């Protein structure tokens, strides 16, 4: 019963992708990095929804869209705790927790202005690690500086 009420807070979609369990404060960032303002189909966005796991969560439902791996990697960097759900005919056909990749190339800019990637024609490359507070960090393959989620800027 309570499950049904939660579902109703944001409309169901017939076919498409749901990004669930986004940390509330990251919801708009996910929307932004996926350029969802350009999507012509229906997009539903909910934030500050109750969540047992996260306290407050965000959810984004996008009709008629599935994501390619570079997009999923972007989501993983901004919302590593998110779940990706594929919907066909209102049914869940696939549900997966997003797993951040070990390395990420080209899509993120290095935060260090003196990094060779910001001064020469060099594609960026980062290793993704977890620090001892459990925080995800991106370590630049070239300048070896590490950056946190808040420093991530997509190229």
């Amino acid at each position, binding site marked *: 019963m309570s499950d049904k009420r939660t579902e109703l807070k944001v409309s169901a979609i017939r076919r498409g992708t749901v990004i669930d369990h986004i940390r509330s404060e990251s919801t708009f960032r996910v929307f932004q990095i996926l350029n969802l303002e350009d999507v012509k189909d229906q997009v539903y966005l909910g934030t500050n929804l109750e969540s047992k796991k996260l306290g407050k969560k965000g959810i984004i439902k996008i009709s008629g869209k599935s994501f390619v791996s570079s997009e999923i990697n972007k989501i993983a960097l901004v919302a590593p705790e998110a779940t990706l759900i594929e919907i066909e005919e209102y049914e869940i056909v696939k549900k997966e927790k997003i797993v951040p990749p070990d390395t990420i190339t080209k899509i993120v800019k290095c935060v*260090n202005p*003196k*990094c*060779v*990637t910001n*001064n*020469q*024609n*060099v594609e960026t490359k980062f290793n993704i690690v977890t*620090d*001892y507070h459990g925080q995800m*960090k991106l370590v*630049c*393959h*070239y*300048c*070896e*500086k*590490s950056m946190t989620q808040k420093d991530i800027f997509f190229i």
Partner: protein
Amino acid sequence: MIQLKNRSLVSITDYSKEEIIKVLDIAEEFEKNPRQKILSDYVIASLFFEPSTRTRLSFESAVQYLGGRIIGFASADTSSVRKGESLKDTILTVSNYSDLIVMRNPLDGSARFASEVSPVPIINAGDGANQHPTQCLLDLYSIRKTQGTLENIQIALVGDLKYGRTVHSLVQALSKFNATFHLVSPEILKLPSAVKKWIKDAGLEYYQYTELADVIPFADILYMTRIQGERFPDPIEYEQVKNSYVLENKMLDKSKDNLRVLHPLPRVNEIHENVDSNPKAYYFQQAQNGVYVRQALIAAILGLKE
């Protein structure tokens, strides 16, 4: 498996414990006999995109003692870089004329990039604020030579532990040798947490201090560093900490017999000149060791010593 031949050295972490020891062993051989003409058929490129007279002369002296020839430039002003040539093009061009490239460049990560595009091996002689592995190797050589071992050293690192890249590399390297780290710095210049993680991941201990006198009685190595003004975003902050630590001769009275004072040089005020004549002062010999270590590295990478 130790395989140094044809491999670039960008960061000290590129080398395993065994590979570090190998280079130091070869360096020891060069210290006994530095004038071996093993490079007479070789050309070494020395590309200094920013001036660093000390490091450049040490490399060039290493090559000259071995009978090798050197091409290159001592600053970007005199090179094609000034005309806007990309780093990649400079490296590809110079690699046509040389067997190995020694490079110093102000951009962080430039050495890694150069090693990926270059058909000949690169030795990083400093890439911006990032890495300077030959400094680290000569520090390790000096520690081993003065202590008889690299294992279980009580090392005190003093000064700018936040921005000092030699300190970071030394921590990474000594974490392979079961060291205990005594970190002496002003509050705002403490060792970054990413570097502390190296110590923790190796299962080792570190202790933090603000007073230099606290570590002198039990340290084996006192590694002094300069607090560099140009690294500070705020000049007032620099004024507050610039003379935090000044080692004076009488402070060493209570130190262990085997204690040696190291410094990557140049020093400003952090070691008083009255320390220089103390037999525990080792910083000038330390710089001398740089030549043997660089000879060893060049010989190993060219496959001339195993």
